[in-house]
């Protein structure tokens, strides 16, 4: 029957470990960020900061994205995952490669360890992409949401190809341009092409589902898809060939307009929602979108500085952290609680539904602690961003301390959900 996805859902054994390892990586990255703050604040190119950024984007954000995608694929393509065994193998290779790659960056072993670590990462991501492309080939549905997700996979592949080539270049030096030029492309297609496109695709399915909205006008989403991709392709080619400032500005404008169209779509969904009361997880999701809007303003400032040929490291860190820690991490911190409890609930209670009284998925975690986590994180974010903007180490460290508290509460809550003990009561 159309729309019934549970028969296609993958085994919980594939999905759940991603949430646990991802949440652990988030905590580790924040602890490392705290202890290295004085170093990365003063260095233009800090290997330790690069290591932490990779733990954050690969160990935390991409790890959770993989887990979430395995669960979402039956909804997106209306078919089951091509291979669950391949997904298990991918998880193992991917986890090892995140550890290896981060260690190689941490040790600044650019011409030795990084070479092998990046090849392992390339293999892990290709295993994931292959599994999803083979799933895509047997899809029974194609709409704008699935286009966003499929295109995000293409950008992920390109991100890892450029990343791997840059790593190989440290050993064999075959690039004509400075490797920084390639890193700029690598970072932007990773953040916008992979993460932002994926979030748009996934949220365009999930947000209307969770707030109950039947807003079906996808014109804004179609425009968003076109504008972001044109902007990103143009920006990458422009940076690859010697950069032209006017083209760069036009392409950035195209991406910003694309994001604004996406925000317009979410606004229409929000306005037409039937479920007026939002839980903490959905509040975090909408707050992430507000942060995205603020990040767009920051990127405008960054572009302005570049136009004047002023390179300010603090603005680059500000721009990167408002997207990675601000937008991407906030939306993940919300959406974990809209997916993981349901996956565990289905695993533990599905056979007993109707026969016994079962708790609700929401009762698998502490909503009170999630609320505390949300406030601590938002205060931490405001303090951290201020610290970066005004280059104040102590303020930055206070902000990161609050991130550590957030990551700890999140990990405890994720473990509480994962190891939930069955509670059945007889129906009278």
């Amino acid at each position: 029957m159309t729309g019934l996805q549970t028969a296609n859902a993958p085994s919980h054994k594939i999905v759940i470990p991603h949430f646990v390892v991802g949440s652990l990586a988030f905590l580790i990255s924040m602890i490392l960020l705290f202890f290295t703050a004085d170093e990365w604040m003063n260095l233009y190119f800090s290997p330790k900061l690069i290591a932490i950024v990779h733990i954050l984007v690969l160990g935390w954000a991409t790890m959770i994205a993989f887990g979430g995608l395995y669960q979402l694929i039956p909804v997106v393509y209306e078919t089951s995952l091509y291979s669950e065994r391949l997904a298990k193998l991918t998880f193992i290779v991917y986890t090892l490669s995140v550890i290896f790659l981060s260690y190689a960056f941490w040790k600044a072993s650019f011409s030795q360890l990084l070479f092998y670590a990046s090849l392992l990462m390339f293999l892990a991501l290709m295993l994931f992409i292959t599994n999803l492309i083979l799933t895509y080939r047997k899809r029974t549905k194609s709409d704008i949401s699935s286009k966003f997700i499929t295109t995000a996979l293409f950008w992920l592949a390109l991100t890892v190809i450029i990343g791997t080539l840059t790593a190989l270049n440290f050993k064999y030096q075959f690039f004509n341009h400075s490797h920084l030029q390639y890193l700029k492309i690598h970072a932007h297609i990773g953040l916008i092409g992979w993460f932002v496109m994926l979030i748009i695709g996934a949220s365009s399915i999930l947000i209307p589902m969770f707030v109950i909205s039947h807003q079906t006008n996808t014109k804004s989403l179609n425009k968003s898809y076109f504008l972001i991709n044109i902007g990103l392709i143009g920006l990458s080619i422009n940076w690859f060939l010697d950069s032209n400032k006017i083209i760069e500005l036009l392409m950035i404008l195209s991406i910003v307009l694309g994001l604004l169209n996406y925000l317009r779509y979410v606004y229409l969904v929000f306005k037409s929602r039937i479920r007026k009361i939002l839980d903490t997880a959905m509040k975090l999701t909408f707050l992430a979108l507000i942060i995205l809007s603020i990040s767009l303003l920051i990127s405008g400032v960054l572009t302005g500085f570049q136009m004047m040929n002023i390179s300010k490291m603090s603005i680059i860190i500000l721009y990167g952290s408002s997207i990675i820690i601000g937008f991407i991490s906030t939306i993940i911190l919300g959406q974990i609680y809209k997916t993981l409890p349901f996956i565990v609930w289905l695993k533990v209670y599905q056979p007993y539904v109707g026969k016994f009284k079962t708790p609700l998925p929401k009762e698998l975690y502490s909503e009170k602690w999630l609320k505390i986590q949300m406030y601590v994180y938002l205060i931490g974010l405001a303090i951290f961003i201020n610290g970066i903007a005004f280059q104040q180490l102590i303020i930055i460290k206070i902000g990161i301390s609050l991130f550590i508290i957030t990551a700890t509460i999140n990990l405890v809550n994720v473990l509480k959900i994962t190891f939930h003990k069955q509670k059945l009561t007889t129906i009278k």
Partner: protein
Amino acid sequence: MYSNPSQIELEILETVLVNVYDPEIEIDIVNLGLVYDVKFDGKNQVVVTMTLSTPSCPLSDSIVQDVKESIKRSYPDFEVAVNLVFEPQWHQGMITPEGKEMLGMS
């Protein structure tokens, strides 16, 4: 044989299905307006025609199972079938005033 099938249909709706909850929305399926029809043939067959708040609802199997098991618990001799439909599409006009209050719509 039951003398008044419509009485049974009403009982199923008002005493059984009103206790079947959408686990995500946390509101019962009757007040959400998800139940379109309950048909009892006067012997032992019950057919519930219902919808979901969204066709891609990941909890669809659980809700359908809950409907079947809940009716069987009250009427152990009945055979229950659930007919899941998406036409007409569910909309907010189908929610009862109590449901709207629970959703924060009023």
